[in-house]
């Protein structure tokens, strides 16, 4: 039975249900219980934003606080996964990948290949990303392009509570290492989510909205930007199709190509920086594989090539917004003032 719960609650519920179902699932990270060794409550925090709240009480030996040692505990997730557990480790902000990337990309992601197919490394790294809460340059990045680049990793970027739950359950059950990107601005967004457990397969895009004029591919929080743009464009008589890949690796290329083959136009909306981005990845794939169907240049809407700024006045300009998405759509339709970027 579905109720309205938040994105955060959806993830929490997925974790709880998987911990209940499978006792090899363990959860750890900084303050994931949130009070280890302290005189007050042992589980005071349940994660810096409260995503793991309540799990410690239910599964005490399987929810662990860690020292601030991301290499050690992310690597511990890799080692645990290779030796019989299904760990869910939290890299609090993806911005911190720089202190522990080796264990993610050279160890976990490569075990299977390096070892000739003998390793199975079923681990999930949960991580927060995205701008919008005035957290400045080191706590607001998106960075999924970097992880998408890495063979051996799966990369999940849910856009709504329903998907968050189903994708988290699928990620935990998946036998490959998965990095699960949680947009911090989405945490408080509500949606209909079934109480029962369900999986959304990794690698299946969702058609969020159907339309014949232009395909908008958007990920994470950008889906709602695309939806707002589509609403505005509808008033101008433009029907947008919105495709949410949900996972960037594997990428459901076919779903994107199918849409573009129908619409002939592509806008990709990506919260990350522009160079070697997901936007460029998808635009290039479409250009290479759907060229004959394209009626106009594909357009990329991304953050600029700058770190995220602190000031609200600047940060609000940093993240792609519905206006920029709509403007890009109009450019593909030749209805914009500026013919070329």
């Amino acid at each position, binding site marked *: 039975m579905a109720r309205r719960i938040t994105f955060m609650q959806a993830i929490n519920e997925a974790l709880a249900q998987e911990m209940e179902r499978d006792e090899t699932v363990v959860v750890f990270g*900084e*303050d994931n219980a*949130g*009070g*280890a*060794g*302290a*005189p*007050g*409550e042992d589980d*005071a*925090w349940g994660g*810096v934003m409260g995503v793991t709240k309540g799990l410690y009480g239910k599964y005490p030996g399987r929810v662990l*606080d*860690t*020292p*601030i*040692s*991301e*290499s*050690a505990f992310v690597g511990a997730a890799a080692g645990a996964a290779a030796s019989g557990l299904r760990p869910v480790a939290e890299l609090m902000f993806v*911005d*911190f990948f*720089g*202190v522990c990337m080796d264990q993610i990309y050279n160890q976990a992601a490569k075990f299977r290949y390096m070892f000739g197919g003998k390793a199975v490394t079923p681990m999930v790294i949960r991580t927060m990303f995205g701008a919008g*809460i*005035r*957290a*400045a*340059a*080191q*706590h607001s990045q998106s960075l999924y392009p970097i992880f998408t680049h890495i063979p051996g990793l799966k990369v999940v970027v849910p856009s709504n509570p329903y998907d968050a739950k189903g994708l988290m359950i699928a990620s935990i059950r998946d036998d490959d290492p998965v990095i699960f990107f949680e947009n911090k601005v989405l945490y408080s967004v509500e949606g209909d989510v079934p109480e029962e457990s369900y999986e959304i397969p990794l690698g299946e895009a969702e058609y969020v909205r159907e339309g014949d004029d232009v395909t908008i591919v958007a990920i994470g929080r950008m889906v709602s930007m695309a939806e707002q743009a589509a609403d505005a464009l509808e008033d101008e008589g433009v029907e947008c199709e919105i495709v949410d890949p949900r996972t960037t690796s594997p990428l459901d290329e076919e779903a994107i190509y199918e849409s573009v083959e129908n619409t002939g136009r592509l806008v990709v909306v990506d919260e990350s920086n522009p160079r070697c981005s997901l936007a460029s990845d998808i635009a290039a794939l479409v250009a290479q594989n759907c060229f004959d169907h394209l009626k106009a240049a594909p357009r990329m809407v991304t953050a*600029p*090539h*700058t*770190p995220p*700024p*602190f*000031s*609200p*006045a*600047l940060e609000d*300009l*940093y993240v792609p917004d519905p206006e920029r998405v709509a403007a890009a759509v109009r450019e593909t339709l030749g209805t914009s003032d500026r013919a070329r970027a």
Partner: protein
Amino acid sequence: MTEVASPQELSKEDLLDAYRTMRTIREFEERLHTEFATGEIPGFVHLYAGEEAIATGVISHLGADDYVASTHRGHGHAIAKGCDVKGMMKEIYGKAEGLCHGKGGSMHIADLDKGMLGANGIVGGGPPLVCGAGLSAKVRGTNQVAVSFTGDGGSNQGTTLESMNLASVWNLPVVFVIENNGYAEATSTNFSVKGIDIAKRADGFGIPGVTVDGHDFFAVHEAAGEAIRRAREGGGPSLIECKVNRYFGHFEGDAQTYRAENEVENLRCEKDCLDNFRRRVASAGLIDEGELDRIDEEVKQLINEAVEEAKAAPDPKADDLLTDVYVSY
């Protein structure tokens, strides 16, 4: 803990300066706490109140061309290093005239002209940087010193541990100050460093390490004096662990249910670094309490102005979004 040092060793002017710095930090932080509650301050704000004796005790030994690398809890270090308080406040409010033109905010306050290499949003981000500043001093043949501040939590970050070793191997003029305030976010030091003295870690890298009472300006001042002198004279790096407490939550908005009941109230009564300082200089007959009260008033006034001006200051402009990424591109 080292023996308690005495106020008599400082000049009256130094004592007044130290008091003013500590009071400025305290007032800055207490006021931010109040203002944050109004919702007008954006982002994450980590307050240094309770720990003023550390920044002040250490940095009072440094000149303008010495270097400091700080943490997410950086306001105290910045103030002690001479950053403009009004510029800092504007920065925290995200304004164009802020110390970093509104691009950095609380977690990235920096002023390279003042030797302030920046607050840092990455736990363990600072120690490698001071190795570089120390190397720079060494290669250029100056007698500058570089000091990093790191929390108990940050003392578990590999970057911090590596840096102690690198500084030792390169024999750099560097001091690693560990601010052990008992918690990393909600996680106790008892858990994350097994309750042992962090100063012990110095042994494993062949550098001196001491533990001092971080509430006691004089104890910090003495230990830092020794370490900084050693560094300046080519004697290499050292580590100072300061045991201390923070008065507010990890960041503003933290309900702090991990703390003991009345933990902070008791600390404020028993361990306050400003009270301690006042008591010590008064009982030694060095400074009249009235003089200190006057400083309190002046500081209050300054912070008042800083907040008023910050609130009234203009936002950055749209064009600012794209500038300052590169020197040239």
